[in-house]
């Protein structure tokens, strides 16, 4: 079923001189079991958008339906929504607070009213999913490395067993190795756990490799919402928004301009390599 977003807008500081339109009539559908990349420049409204999806921010106008029910309806159970739509914030490691990693991860399931045994079971599963070394389960979350902290925080949301997992810039502030680890982990979780994942990012390179669909936001509007290949055909427009297509797309485009008849739709280095190899006869070398 998933989420249906119907013409929502959101204003900050409504009715004052500082009023800002963060979302401007956005409509979209988020089905089950899809890997979505949500891309936009800083201030494009992407963080606001994901916060409306689990009811943390109440939309100024428009409606959001979860499994067909209006989330602002009187009888709607927001707590259930928040456990079904898990949201991992930017720098999620700043929310850690417990004495050890496992209790911190158990915080979410406990809030759902589960027994300690069940909460622990879920926490262990979640820590397994984020590949946390077992030796660290009992250590203080503040003693972990940056990447480990982040994985512990993601596990904290995962332990609530969300059907839709939203990650807001999960790679921000990590080094390239940490970034690849987290992204690989998320892609792995997608395969293992069969859920919808929305990956918020401003980097096309991060997203292009993994997702089924890309939503591009700019100035509070949803500008593109399509398969990655089709979105990246709008390279010039994306650049005007301060975004860029993956680097490999540029290489393929240049090759094409120089006369090699390759398709410029390749998104990853591997795809590009295969495409070039297929056309190597034309390369008079």
């Amino acid at each position, binding site marked *: 079923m998933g989420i249906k977003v119907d013409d929502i807008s959101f204003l900050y*500081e409504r009715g*004052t001189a500082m009023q800002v339109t963060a979302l401007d009539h956005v409509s979209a559908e988020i089905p089950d079991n899809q890997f979505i990349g949500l891309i936009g420049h800083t201030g494009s409204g992407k963080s606001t958008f994901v*916060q409306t999806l*689990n009811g*943390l921010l109440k939309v100024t106008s428009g409606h959001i339906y979860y499994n067909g029910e209006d989330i602002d309806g009187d009888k709607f159970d927001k*707590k259930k929504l*928040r*456990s079904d739509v*898990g*949201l991992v*914030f930017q720098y*999620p490691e*700043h*929310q*850690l*607070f417990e004495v050890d990693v496992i209790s911190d991860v158990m*915080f*979410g399931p*406990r*809030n*759902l009213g589960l027994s300690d045994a069940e909460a622990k079971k879920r926490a262990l599963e979640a820590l397994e999913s984020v590949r946390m070394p077992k030796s660290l389960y009992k250590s203080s979350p*503040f003693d972990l490395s940056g990447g480990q902290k982040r994985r512990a925080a993601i596990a*904290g*949301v995962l332990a*609530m067993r969300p059907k839709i997992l939203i990650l807001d810039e999960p790679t921000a502030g990590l080094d390239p190795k940490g970034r690849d680890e987290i992204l690989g982990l998320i892609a792995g979780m997608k395969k293992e756990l069969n859920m919808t994942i929305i990956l918020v990012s401003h980097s096309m390179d991060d997203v292009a490799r993994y997702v089924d669909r890309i939503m591009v936001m700019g100035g509070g509007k949803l500008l593109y919402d399509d398969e990655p290949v089709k979105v990246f055909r709008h390279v010039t427009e994306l650049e005007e928004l301060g975004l860029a297509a993956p680097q490999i797309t540029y290489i393929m485009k240049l090759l094409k301009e120089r006369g090699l008849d390759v398709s410029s739709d390749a998104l990853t280095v591997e795809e590009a390599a295969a495409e070039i190899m297929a056309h190597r006869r034309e390369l008079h070398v």
Partner: protein
Amino acid sequence: MFDSITLGQYYQTDSVLHRLDPRVKLVGTFVYLISLFVVDSYVGYIVAALFLAAMIFLSNVPFRYIVRGMKTIVFLLLITVCFNLFLTPGEVIWQAWIFKITKEGLTFAIKMAVRLSLLILGSSIMTLTTTPTQLTDALESLLRPLKKLHVPVHEISMMMSIALRFIPILMEETDKIMKAQIARGADFESKNLIKKIKSMVPLLVPLFISAFRRANDLAMAMEARCYRGGEGRTKMKPLVYKANDRIAYLVLLAFAVVCILTRIYF
């Protein structure tokens, strides 16, 4: 989540009051607060209220914005009024069970409510029209004579400006952590007091950690720029009195005199 707290937050606009030297505004507020305790008659309160109304008009800050900030202190105001109303001994004019209202209590409660409201409005006019930086600059400059008594004036004002600067940052941080914990199913709206206190732990622990981290980063950044206290430190924008500031001092003096006169004659 904290949108409603406008009490004393700087309101950016251009007005005569905004352009005044912060020292004038600081002294002015001080004089105003003292004069509220000097006057003791209805005439005096009317004078003080009119003066304040004129200041609000001059400040260009929308009246609605100022009043919205008052909402946060309504509770305090109510308690004060109740205490004065019911607990002042004197000539009884109304009685029910153990509660009795006296004539003295009634006048006292009204005066107290007016005085408190004027106090708070008066001081919020200053903070609404003066940035925290200007305010601490003014404080440092006014307290300079105390340096001779080895009072660390510069350090005090530096601490004040840092503390003020961090209020919005920490509020934003609180909002963020709160949202993150709500997303993990935390309940901050529970009416149960014990549950409410317990629910603060997931908020306060990360908040303290982040405050210490920020303090550490700031100390490092100050060190890196060779900050070593106020010794020999100069200002980019030194405070200089202009014609308007002198006029403002005269207006203040006139106001203070009028207040003292009402005390004597009414």
